[in-house]
């Protein structure tokens, strides 16, 4: 196996640049073989960060270092073709006039490998994503899932030290996405370079990534392993991603938690000072009348939206505080829940967790 890269190495980057209204300053670090997921709302600077790492957009500050190679710092810049980088974008972007095998061989050919060798490598890469039967297919003859796998094979055929995946599964329908996700996971396990995966799908991030980096408005708001983030999300967006109600709040030693922006929670898990407080949606109960009994958190709220997810429903509530409840379909019909309705929501104090902010 011919290798076009010098050594196996990690990524150390700080991407600073301005793009439209947003000012980006994102640091990323990862070891060889690691997958880092970059998550954030639309327009937070994720794609710009990826294009800067690829060398398509120049940095205005910071650096990109991969192992012992300096790819970019201000005033010194390697072009995309001088970096060992693979890029895969949301809608696959195969070269429409080339067959699958020629799409994958394009990189090795461009990097100076002889024709036969490039082709052998392309066939090998297509085989590794399970597409041996479709090497002669034209892009328009491929399904979106197959096209995504060809795009992955193409990005990996140059043996990049850094693999950049920008929303690689976003253009796929849900069924295809699940299958392609597991294929992607398998292929990434065998890949020994650094992978940066941009996504806004929590499932991608939690199943594919070793580490998560949350980017909001051009800044990193949280980094950690998926387990860290699931336990202690540290931004409103991260809270949404892991599906928890998350509040920036102030706690006292008696278990009273004053939410910034209004509302008070009572917890059996007190932390003093500036805290994050979480409430699992499944721990919220809804009632027509003021509940009596053990729940120490109860508020009259108004329903802002109801969405169904399989056998349960997520109910958005607003009032003294905003809250998402997850209830069974039985409760939806028993309480005749509908948007605009006034209900009581209650949460046991034992379900409210706090941790320092």
């Amino acid at each position, binding site marked *: 196996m011919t290798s076009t890269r010098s050594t196996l190495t990690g990524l150390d980057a700080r991407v600073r640049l301005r793009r439209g209204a947003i000012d980006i300053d994102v640091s990323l670090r990862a070891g060889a073989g690691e997958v880092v997921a970059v998550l954030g709302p639309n327009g937070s600077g994720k794609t710009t960060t990826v*294009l800067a790492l*690829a*060398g*398509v957009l120049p940095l205005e500050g910071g650096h990109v270092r991969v192992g012992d190679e300096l790819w970019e710092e201000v005033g010194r810049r390697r*072009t*995309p*073709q001088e*970096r060992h*980088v*693979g*890029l895969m*974008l949301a809608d696959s*972007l195969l*070269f*429409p*006039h080339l067959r699958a095998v020629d799409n994958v061989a*394009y*990189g090795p050919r*461009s*990097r*100076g490998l002889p024709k036969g060798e490039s082709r052998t490598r392309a066939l090998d890469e297509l085989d590794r994503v399970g597409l041996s039967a479709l090497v002669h297919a034209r892009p328009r003859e491929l399904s979106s899932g197959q096209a995504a796998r060809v795009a992955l094979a*193409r*990005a990996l055929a*140059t043996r*990049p030290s850094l693999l*950049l995946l920008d929303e690689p599964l976003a253009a796929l329908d849900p069924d295809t996405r699940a299958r392609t996700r597991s294929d992607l996971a398998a292929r990434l396990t065998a890949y020994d370079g650094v992978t940066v995966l941009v996504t806004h799908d929590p499932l991608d991030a939690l199943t594919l990534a070793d580490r998560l980096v949350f980017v909001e408005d051009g800044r990193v708001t949280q980094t950690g392993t998926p387990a860290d983030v699931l336990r202690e999300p540290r931004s409103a967006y991260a809270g949404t991603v892991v599906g928890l109600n998350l509040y920036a709040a102030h706690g006292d030693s008696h278990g009273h938690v004053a939410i910034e922006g209004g509302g008070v929670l009572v917890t059996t898990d007190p932390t003093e000072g500036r805290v994050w407080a979480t409430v699992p949606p499944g721990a919220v109960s809804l009632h027509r009348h003021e509940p009596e009994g053990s729940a120490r958190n109860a508020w009259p709220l108004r329903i802002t939206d109801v969405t169904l997810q399989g056998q349960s429903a997520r109910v958005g509530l607003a009032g003294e505080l905003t809250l998402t409840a997850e209830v069974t379909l039985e409760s939806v019909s028993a309480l005749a829940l509908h948007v605009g309705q006034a209900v009581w929501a209650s949460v046991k104090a034992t379900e409210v967790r706090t941790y320092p902010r």
Partner: protein
Amino acid sequence: MVGGGTGRRVGGRLVLGVPALLAVLLLVLPLLALLLRTDWSRLLADLATPTVWTALRLSLTTTSCTAALCLLLGTPLAWLLARSDHPGTRWLRALLTVPLVLPPVVGGVALLLTWGRNGILGGALSAFGIQIPFTTVAVVLAETFVSLPFYVLAVEGAMRGLDPRLEAVARTLGASELRYLRTVGLPLVLPGIASGLALAWARALGEFGATITFAGNFPGRTQTLPLLVYVELERDPQVATSISILLLAISVVVLGALRGRWLR
């Protein structure tokens, strides 16, 4: 109420239909007249004359040279225009379309002032004994002057339609700009290039005003088919009609062939 609705609909049809029909008649009647007034029994005899053959050969040679110049010079220009986001590009593009709207005779005068004996370039050239006006080269220059803008605009439009992310991907795969252009950019805009060539070539084939002003009307040297039609119209209108039929046939055949292959 229902009747009123139908009435309005018929009214609407008329408001649009009558002008549309007039437009069709305006375009089709002259073509029909050409076909009706051609003396088909004389057609071959009219065309099988040395004058016509010479003019035909000259027309085909000069329009082929023009098409080649468009391809060689126009394609790189279209590529650079399509990729530039410099504010000056808009002005350059506007400037390049001027020959498109300029009366061809004015174009011919402008060409004389450039390449003529006292022109801004012609002066220097005549010092080396090179004369451009009233030569076959002048015919090609005149045809290129009027048809290159068609080509550049058509091809630039096609090139602007390329997804810029394709190039980003190609660059990360190790392709230089030229390799990307050769292996991805050009193959993908081939239909645009073909339709640009067809437009430019058709415009060059019909060129009259700039040619007669700048290159004159010398049989065998600068007398192309349209110029011959003009001359014959004075001498023998029936021969002019026959040559017109020939021009019409060449245009239809070439455009038809390109349409099947490239133009949609």
